């Protein structure tokens, strides 16, 4: 048997992933992503009117993104006020999504994205990007493709995929990556810690492999969601007819 991690995974193995769409009634689009112990919920509103008005741009839609961790999402209670880290991640998530969007289509409007971390177990920014892209698609906002995101890192001198909280806290390096499905563009690339050039290449290709797997799950989720209500209603109408 090869190298096994603290949670029994192989180095190139993702945590179990669950995704759901349309989980919020009042939002224009919404998605929920669970990646191991990490749980995030995303709501998308828009394109809609911009308030305050002066933020609006005649060149196209603006995006406002809020990444937030619920006070109960961590081991110790987290102060609900947005921290320096959350403000940075909001910006980073927004920038990871922007290359996928056609903002010029809706001048003077805004697209508001709210990403709430319900449980943090490492890789929350990546889970948020993945969920945001699903929620944007669900809201009917034109996209070049889906953005899938996943991190790779170095823990105990081993390059591995999708670090969990324990690995994240003790890691030598962490490399979150977001990848745009159609063009193959990398829309997010951050690196915390030290990697040699070879290690970096290895970690990046591992992270991209993870992104591709996550993209497949995103597509499957969309497919299931848009085909499922059909089945229920078809059978209901069938019963009506037989009465």
């Amino acid at each position, binding site marked *: 048997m090869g190298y096994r991690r603290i949670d029994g995974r192989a180095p190139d193995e993702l945590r179990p992933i669950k995704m759901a769409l349309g989980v919020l009634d009042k939002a*224009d*689009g919404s998605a929920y992503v669970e990646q191991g112990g990490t749980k995030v919920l995303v709501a998308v509103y*828009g*394109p*809609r*009117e911009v308030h305050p008005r002066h933020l609006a741009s*005649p060149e196209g839609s603006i995006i406002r993104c809020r990444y937030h961790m619920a006070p109960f999402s961590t081991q110790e209670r987290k102060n609900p006020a947005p921290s320096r880290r959350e403000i940075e991640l909001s910006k980073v998530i927004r920038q990871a999504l922007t290359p*996928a969007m*056609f903002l010029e289509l*809706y*001048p*003077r*409007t805004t697209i508001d994205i709210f990403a709430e971390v319900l449980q943090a177990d490492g890789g929350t920014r990546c889970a948020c990007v993945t969920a945001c892209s699903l929620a944007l*698609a*669900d*809201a*009917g*906002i*034109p*996209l*070049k*493709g*889906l953005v899938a995101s996943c991190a790779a890192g170095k823990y105990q001198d081993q390059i591995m995929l999708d670090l969990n909280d324990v690995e994240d806290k003790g890691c030598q390096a962490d490399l979150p990556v977001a990848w745009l*499905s*159609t*063009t193959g563009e990398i829309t997010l690339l951050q690196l915390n810690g030290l990697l040699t050039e070879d290690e970096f290449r290895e970690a990046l290709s591992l992270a991209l492999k993870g992104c591709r797997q996550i993209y497949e799950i995103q*597509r499957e989720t*969309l*497919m299931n969601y*848009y*085909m499922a*209500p*059909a089945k229920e*209603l*078809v059978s209901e*109408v069938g019963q*009506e*007819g037989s*009465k």
Partner: protein
Amino acid sequence: MATQQEERKLVFPGDLIAEGDYFAGENTFKRENRIYATRIGLASKDGRRIFVIALRGTYEPKVGDTVIGKVIDIGFTNWTLDILSPYIAILNASDVFRRGFDPHRDSLSDVFGIGDIVLAEVAQFDRTRDPLLTVRGPGLGKLTKGRLERITPAKIPRLIGKKGSMITLLKNETGCQITIGKNGYVHILGKSREAEELVSLAIRKIEAEAHIPGLTNRMTEFLRARMKGSEDKER
């Protein structure tokens, strides 16, 4: 019919629809000879043009569209209406008080109050300005009776059906007057509350099943079964 349904494949943002000598229509984009979808919807082909009929999305005003709006504010010379779009619509007083509108004499709130539902047409709209409405036209103006239903604007073509087949079916089976606002409001006026409720239910069913083939047949079956049921109860 069968071939057309086969053509209409459910696609998601970034899905490759076609490769080669095609051009990109609505909700698609072209990159290196490949056409990709930008929204969730049904991929269709019209000659060389590839387009996607979106299943989700907000209403984008177009000049000439009939819309149903709700009055949200009254100004000195105009009303503002919510038309379920990213843009707030304007209806000018001069459009209603035809010959010479006088802000001293004419009272805007006597015509349309806040919360009133108005059937109007989009007269002007472009990237730089909010949509301007008009109520000059046959049947346009305040709606006072009936019931209002909402549908995803992207699914209105399915509610209307091919050459109006679906909406004609709904009208004939239930005997209701149905006015569709392109923005997603549908006004229903029938002889009884039951008939109006049936139309509401049918609209919700169309919304949920818009992308499943054989919609018209299923709706016919559904409406007939329900109408028969209510007749039996009356006896």
